[in-house]
């Protein structure tokens, strides 16, 4: 075919002409009117496993609402930054969005009425959802009396342990009730395997670089960084004692090893588990899901019990991680978004599918009767793991949210590392930390002319 135009006669030759044509075609795509198919709902996600779940579920929702088109967008780890920019510029935010528990704090800064999410409390209360959900799970998504998200999960934590290796050391883990019992058992099981005088098999693996395991222990005891009223309580006696305890597991009792690599999900940590160097780990439900997919060859070697308690009959669990779903204030049809929220989080068929793929237990109590949660789990040698999680779920401690969580956690990581590596005593580290964070908040309040929040959560 011959082009009926002499391309060489185009000013400046062929190259610029090709560029011009490409430019015009791009403009055509950009300015072409989008295909109208009823109403659009944009839904942003940061977790791949959630994205896969919703990809399968959205067509069902669209079939129930034929006029609706759900745009599912998975931005991965950068989603929270994009959401922050969209809310700051008052433009481009999605209608519906999932937010991660350590990231929500920054979105609560400033005046409570200017927070970018719709307060869901009126809808939750008028439709009776509050009673149907585990109420302590609203605390991470609530601030000053408003609820900005529905909890995706409970994330109860259990002690996952190597039954074979503890038994070989003469320990029956199902008899463990308290942390003191665990220390005694751990001393028996932590051993030097190759005779070089150094312990290489540790009773437990704990993170000393970040707040993760310290916070597991602190929440279990009913402590926290902030209390329900937003006060800094990280220098309370309970917080100091807990850090002293964590430090003693490493330095005094020598039954804990720091995480291999940077966190519990690091490949080198999994390698150490396979080598039998790690006998137990504090595992939320989602971590069991990660283990199953990353180290399937360890199937049958693990068992689970509730966490050892701080006192006899004490709480046997804590909570780690979490996600919420919320509606942004830029959403044009909150009623439709609300329907999508309920479909994604409260539909029992969807929740069963979620447990099958991720081992995540839902906060919706009605859903716990489903037979799937009682099924034996092959990864745990036939132990019905779901049953254990559901047994622990009602006892979950609250985790109070605060706009200063990100700054606080960043400094808390340093304090824990300094205490465990004996650069500071736990008391020094936490007292200094609490002073820093209080000063930070006081300075902002002084600038903003804000008073201290009173007990009713009003200014």
């Amino acid at each position: 075919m011959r082009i009926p135009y002499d391309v060489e006669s185009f000013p400046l030759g062929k190259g610029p002409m090709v560029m011009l044509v490409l430019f015009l075609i791009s403009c055509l795509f950009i300015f072409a009117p989008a295909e109208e198919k009823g109403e659009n709902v944009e839904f942003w996600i940061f977790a791949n496993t959630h994205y896969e779940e919703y990809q399968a579920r959205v067509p069902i929702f669209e079939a129930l609402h034929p006029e609706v088109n759900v745009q599912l967008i998975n931005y991965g780890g950068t989603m929270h930054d994009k959401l922050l920019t969209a809310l700051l510029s008052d433009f481009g935010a999605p209608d519906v969005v999932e937010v991660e528990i350590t990231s929500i704090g920054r979105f609560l800064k400033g005046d409570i009425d200017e927070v970018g999410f719709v307060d869901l409390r009126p809808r939750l209360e008028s439709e009776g959802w509050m009673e149907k959900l585990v109420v302590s799970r609203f605390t991470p998504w609530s601030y000053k009396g408003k609820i900005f998200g529905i909890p995706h999960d409970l994330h109860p934590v259990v002690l996952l342990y190597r039954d074979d290796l503890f038994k070989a050391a003469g320990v029956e883990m199902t008899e463990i009730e308290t942390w003191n019992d665990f220390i005694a058992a751990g001393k028996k099981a932590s051993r030097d395997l190759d005779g070089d005088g150094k312990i290489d098999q540790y009773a437990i693996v704990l993170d000393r670089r970040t707040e993760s395991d310290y916070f597991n222990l602190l929440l279990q005891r009913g402590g926290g960084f902030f209390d329900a009223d937003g006060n800094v309580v990280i220098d309370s006696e309970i917080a100091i004692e807990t850090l002293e305890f964590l430090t003693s597991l490493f330095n005094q009792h020598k039954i804990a090893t720091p995480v291999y690599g940077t966190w519990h999900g690091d490949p080198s940590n999994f390698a150490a588990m396979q080598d039998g160097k790690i006998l137990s780990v504090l595992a939320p439900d989602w971590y069991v899901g990660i283990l199953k997919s990353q180290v399937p060859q360890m199937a049958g070697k693990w068992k689970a019990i509730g966490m050892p308690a701080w006192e006899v009959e004490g709480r046997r669990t804590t909570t780690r991680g979490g996600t919420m779903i919320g509606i942004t204030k830029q959403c044009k049809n909150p009623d439709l978004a609300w329907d999508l929220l309920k479909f994604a989080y409260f539909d029992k068929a969807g929740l069963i599918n979620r447990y099958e793929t991720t081992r995540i237990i839902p906060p919706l109590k009605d859903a716990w009767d489903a037979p799937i949660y009682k099924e034996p789990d092959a990864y745990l040698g036939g132990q019905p793991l779901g049953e254990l999680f559901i047994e622990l779920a009602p006892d979950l401690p609250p985790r109070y949210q605060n706009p200063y969580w990100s700054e606080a956690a960043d400094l808390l990581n340093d304090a824990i590392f300094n205490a465990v590596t004996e650069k500071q005593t736990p008391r020094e580290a936490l007292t200094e930390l609490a002073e820093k964070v209080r000063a930070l908040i006081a300075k902002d309040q002084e600038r903003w002319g804000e008073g201290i929040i009173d007990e009713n959560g009003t200014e």
Partner: protein
Amino acid sequence: MKMERNRSSFWHQQQKIAPYLFIAPFYILFIVFMGYPLISSLILSFYEMRGFQSRIFVGFANFTDLFRDPIFWKSLWNTTYFALGTLVLQLPIALLLAILLNAKFVKGKNFLRLAFFAPVLVAGVFVAIIFNLIFDQRAGLINNEFILFGKEIGWLSEGKYVMPAVILTGVWQWAGFNMIYFLAGLQGIRQELYEAAAVDGANWWQSFVHITLPSLRPVIAFVVVVSMIGSFQLFDLPYILTNGGEPADAGSTIVMYLYKNGFQFMRLGYAATIGWVLFIIIAIISIAQLKLLGIFREE
């Protein structure tokens, strides 16, 4: 008559305006995407956000806070440490590689050049993930294969080894890239100079010091300045390698601290201040280097 004058003035005007129209696209894009943000961020550095909707004028408070902020100083030191590591370790290695791969006796030069250049094609995030495994204290390749100084080094778990680990990773990733600049510079040196020196009885070292290095001066200046700017903007490699600067900010850099303040702590004013202070630091260092290397000197 009148019409003619109009027409000629139109031509006259048009000729005056046309050049500006031709360069307009660049300036419009520059103003929208660079100029406006620059000025806006300078203004922002005198404010602090109060949530998402309002901001408060704080004068120079962000600057005075910054100079009293121990994490900023730690991040500045870490970044400077990396920049120095680049200067004394990475660039000499790059130059050495360039000289070797320019030498006549080396075989398979093209393959080796590609091999040394290849790491720069790998995204920083993947490099960080791979080196995370390599540097692991107990399971990592380095500690298992080379027992350095007779002990197991906590590359990423002990504060003092964190930045050396980042520098070594930087060497692996960037030395080959800088090698290409040096190689281009070496190939531009006239062969007759070496021949003349050889006739005068100069040995290899003498010709290196008196011919190669002086001839490479513009290339060295360029590579040093660009590497220093890149070093001070270091972010993704340590962010992944040290999981956000851990332990205890041992791996924190200026841009990482800027990112944390802006996006994690919602302190956009403070983040803008860090950005401007970083800009001033880079500007001073670059000018000083160019002066030292004699680039402003008239030949």
